[in-house]
């Protein structure tokens, strides 16, 4: 990576976080990993590929709700951002099939719903 100039920093900040398209973030800190986030992450990757879904699977740090790990945040056009908790392999697949493909929220694992930041 090239050295940054002050201008580069300004323009990167102005551009903001790339949250375009559909994405899924998995909390991959120690507590998440202990609760099985690693398996959830690879399941999401494999199953999304199998289904040809255009969705980015990303890693992130601790969201704070350790009691509900593994946590998975889903951002999908037309729906509010949802944080699912206590996600296992089965729920991960449900998230892909229902939330991403069919655009309906998955029952019983919702821990937070955020109204969209941008319009």
């Amino acid at each position: 990576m090239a050295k940054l100039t002050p201008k580069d920093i300004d323009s990167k900040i102005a551009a903001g976080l790339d949250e375009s398209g559909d994405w899924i973030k998995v909390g991959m800190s120690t507590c998440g990993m202990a609760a099985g986030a690693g398996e959830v992450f690879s399941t999401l990757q494999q199953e999304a590929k199998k289904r040809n879904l255009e969705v980015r699977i990303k890693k992130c740090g601790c969201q704070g709700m350790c009691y509900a790990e593994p946590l998975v945040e889903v951002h999908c056009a037309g729906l509010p951002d949802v944080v699912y908790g206590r996600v296992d392999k089965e729920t991960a697949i449900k998230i892909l099939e229902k939330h991403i493909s069919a655009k309906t929220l998955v029952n019983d694992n919702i821990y937070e719903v955020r109204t969209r930041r941008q319009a």
Partner: protein
Amino acid sequence: MCSEHILEQLKPIVEEWKGKEGSLIMVLHAVQNHFGYVPREVSLQLSRLLEIPLARIYEVITFYNYFKLEPPGKHRISVCLGTACYLKGAPVILEEVKSILSVKEGETTKDGLFHLDVVRCLGCCGLAPVMMVDDKVYGKVSKGQVMEIVSKYGKEG
């Protein structure tokens, strides 16, 4: 372990750290990562290579809980006795592990398969009580699950 063999293995570690200020603890970390503990012969060689008195090396090894002077068992079992785990029944888990393996904390089983340690907080308090085998963390462990967890590693040998 022959000394030439040790020298060979120590070379990259010593090269990285020699001459850097206050590097002894980092060197010991690298040694323990490599050998699993800090063998006596290694300390002797380190003393020579780094020109640090042997007494200083042992003074440091014995002060810090993290450094081991004995070879560890094949699998390391760590039972967390941090506050959250303690309140949620970690002492019972520890007793169970001890009784299954018939060792005390800090000891290795006779067959060298397991080493039992007590640790203070693995940082997974949300999942208390927690135990760890090698790098795998088991959360919300119940007394009944201990046998199941331990035997997983026993069978693989």
